[in-house]
């Protein structure tokens, strides 16, 4: 009941959908139509997992008054305020999801700038690592850095001053050797994904069952 039934569901669901692909018949199509209708509904609830663990971690921090606990309020308050303001309060400056509203404001003027700025920090870190850590320690690392330099120059207008050929070389690297490497990796990754799918469908890989008690 606890492990066997989920394993059966995975196996039946997986094999059914795999076979379904090859059968165009209306009965098979009906199975598929039910699936496309139901899966988003089930999938939508998966959000509960993330929200639940966030709530649990931060609620504990507040209750135990652990170090920096007030920041946990900064997680929990918007977490619950957003859906309440967006869905339950009538459309006004306070409620609703369209601009202007608190919901829209929190997303557009706090979430978006913070998240995009977070990622832009990496420009600084990459510069620092360029100086302090990227080493041509071996022939292979040298090839990597060389190819990177050519591509970096070829991608920006200033690359032109190093001669018109540089851009062509950069594009050539992208279109041929890069393509070869990525295609080979893709074959490997593709087979890896397929093998993992098989292992999960046939119950060889059961790690995903973990973390929910015995």
């Amino acid at each position, binding site marked *: 009941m606890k492990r066997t039934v989920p394993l059966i569901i995975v196996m039946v669901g997986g094999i059914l959908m795999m076979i379904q692909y090859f059968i165009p018949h209306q009965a098979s199509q009906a199975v598929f139509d039910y699936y496309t209708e139901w899966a*988003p509904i089930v999938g939508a609830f998966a959000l509960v997992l993330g929200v639940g663990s966030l709530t649990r971690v931060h609620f504990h921090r507040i209750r135990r008054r652990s170090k920096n606990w007030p920041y946990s309020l900064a997680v929990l308050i918007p977490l619950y305020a957003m859906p309440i303001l967006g869905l339950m309060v009538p459309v006004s400056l306070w409620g609703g999801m369209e601009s202007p509203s608190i919901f829209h404001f929190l997303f557009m003027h706090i979430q978006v700038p913070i998240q995009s*700025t977070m990622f832009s920090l990496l420009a600084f870190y990459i510069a620092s690592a360029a100086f302090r850590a990227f080493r041509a320690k071996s022939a292979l690392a040298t090839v990597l850095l060389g190819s990177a330099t050519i591509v*970096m120059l070829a991608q920006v207008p200033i690359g032109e001053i190093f001669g018109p050929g540089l851009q062509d070389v950069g594009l050539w690297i992208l279109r041929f050797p890069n393509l070869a490497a990525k295609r080979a990796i893709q074959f490997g990754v593709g087979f890896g994904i397929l093998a993992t799918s098989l292992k999960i469908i046939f119950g060889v890989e059961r790690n995903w069952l973990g973390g929910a008690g015995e």
Partner: protein
Amino acid sequence: MSYDLIGIWVAALFTLAIYSFLYKENPLYRLAEHLVVGISAGYSIAITYDIVVGPKLVDPLIAGTGWVLLIPGILGLLYITRFMPNVAWLSRYPMAFIMGTSMGVGFPLTMKAEVLRQLEAAMAPIYAAGMPWHIVLGNLVMIFGTLAALIYFFFSKPHKGIFFGTGSKVGIWVIMLGFGATFGFTVMGRISLLIGRIQFLLGDWLHLIK
């Protein structure tokens, strides 16, 4: 002050709060970091209810037209049991449903789109009439490079001898050329993100640039 103007000032404040981390970690940075976690999760809940759970589950149920939807509805609700230690195992049911079916659906399609199609494209002719030399060279590099890189990721034979030894050596060189391209593009991407923020700060906020 208008809604948008306040918005730009608040956004600028938080942008600077994040950048202040470059100097030193500080409370303002930490506040911003936590806020973003809460807001993005809260936003996802609201949107998911508004778009899926409401119109596709709750509305038909209230209208009494979709009793069969109770099945996926209840299956979905079982996710909540994850937080009740005694019945946490029930949360495996919806997971099993989603994982099994999506892997089953994906299997033949992945085989077709990522393996067979790519194999078909890898079997390209090297030369066609009127092809310039660098394309022909490129085609040769592409075909031999793919083969060599595949040899590098081949684990069943030792990397010795002409075929496997040379092959894997050429393979790793081709892979490094490819990684060089990735490296260059990654640097480009990170700088672009910085450019986006500077355009916001100097343009939308301070109006120093157009």
